[in-house]
């Protein structure tokens, strides 16, 4: 059931110890930093976290790992120059790591959201990461059987939500968000804008059916576009082509 809440703390309040939490973002783009901070404050522990990375520097996911609140992480690229908290926890044997090629990570969550029980992926065949997994030759090509990754919760960041929970994203901040939204039992979204009117149904990226909790947290994403729109509304320069819809482009011909 869709709900709009006022604070990040309220948004993550259902997350309990031992939950599996899918966390969106690739680098800083699309990373739901305020939701992660709220999860930190919530005290939930023994978590399994699915994210592309394993936290950076002294913020967000890295702090959760520093505090040993993450029992297991499923990710594609934990080792970064500033992933010292993960590095320490890993070397101390205090965090379990499941390393998954990035595309298999995305596809395994897509499978969970799409009700697929497993799929044969060519990625990773013949490598260490396929060890112990079922392999099969299909039409002369080798594949590895991969299983779905489901979340109890997803924490994602979108650009805007309409009153029906429909979401749009900004540029490469879209990344894992739409897939994670489908793969979790309860999807929690932070958005820069909570809209009063419905989005154009043709432009919706994540339909509201996948969204459970929305919290509006302006983070500055899309400020430039917004200024351009306001300038346009005030009768100033014409909009750049990139904001026109197909119908508008067609009409001006």
């Amino acid at each position, binding site marked *: 059931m869709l*709900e*709009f809440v006022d604070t990040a703390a309220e948004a993550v309040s259902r997350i309990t110890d031992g939950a599996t939490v899918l966390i969106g973002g690739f680098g800083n783009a699309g990373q739901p930093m305020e939701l992660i901070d709220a999860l930190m404050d919530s005290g939930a522990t023994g978590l399994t976290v699915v994210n592309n990375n394993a936290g950076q520097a002294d913020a967000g996911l890295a702090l959760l790992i520093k505090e040993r609140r993450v029992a297991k992480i499923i990710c594609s690229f934990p080792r970064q120059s500033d992933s010292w908290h993960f590095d320490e926890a890993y070397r101390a044997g205090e965090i379990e790591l499941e390393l998954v090629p990035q595309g298999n990570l995305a596809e395994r969550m897509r499978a969970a959201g799409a009700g697929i029980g497993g799929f044969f992926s060519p990625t990773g065949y013949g490598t260490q990461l396929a060890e112990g997994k079922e392999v099969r030759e299909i039409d002369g090509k080798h594949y590895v059987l991969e299983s779905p990754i489901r979340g109890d919760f997803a924490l994602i960041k979108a650009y805007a939500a309409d*009153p029906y929970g429909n979401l749009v994203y900004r540029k490469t901040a879209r990344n894992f968000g739409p897939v994670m939204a489908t793969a979790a039992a309860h999807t929690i979204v932070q958005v820069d804008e909570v809209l009063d009117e419905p989005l154009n*149904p043709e432009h919706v990226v994540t339909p509201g059916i996948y969204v459970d909790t929305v919290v509006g947290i302006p983070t500055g994403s899309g400020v430039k576009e917004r200024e351009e729109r306001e300038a346009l509304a005030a009768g100033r320069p014409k909009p750049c082509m990139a904001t026109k819809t197909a119908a508008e482009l067609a009409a001006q011909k």
Partner: protein
Amino acid sequence: MSEMSEQTTETADVQAFRSTDAPLTQDELARVIADDIAPGSFVNLGIGQPTTVSNYLSPEKKVTLHTENGMLGFGPQATGDQVDEDLINAGKIPVTELPGASYFHHADSFAMMRGGHLDVCVLGAYQVSATGDLANWSTGKPGAIPAVGGAMDLAIGAKDTYVMMDLFTKKGDRKLMAECTFPLTGVGCVSRIYSDKAVLLLDPSGVVTVRELHGLTFEELQDKHPDVRFEKAGA
């Protein structure tokens, strides 16, 4: 929208057995189903009789309708100027678009179904077994041209699959079976049967809970289905 949870109606599962003297009309039956659909639900209504359930879903209930051909949030059938050949439902009937609608492609639409994101799907049936097997795509007649459409995907996709049907055929044959004799659409997928004469809750155990009887006594129901074990709801 968080207040919606307070509006949730009493669920059917906790309703005690009740009965009336006359069978339900199709409209009455559609209303019974609509009443059982929780506010805020995402629902797929099959082609034909199940479509009539939408007549009894009030806007305040904020139920969103899904159509397999790639849309959430369609409204009533389109008329006159509203007709748009690019905006149709699974029955290929022109429909309208409600605020909050969204479009997506076929793989995404069936992923939404198969992934268990729809709360309720209402389908017609030739036969349903006591354990929830559904037969609604083929009568298995030799020489008939088979056609399945989205029936098998719908049958197993929703959190709850309801069947809306008459309890007996026009010839008087039973449609609730110990085991279906027609080709199956899905195994163990139906959770409830809404029919003119009975509302039945199914369970993998095969014990059928009778929530409502209309124009049929419990003994008559049992007599007509000697190979099925029934229990009265709340008993």
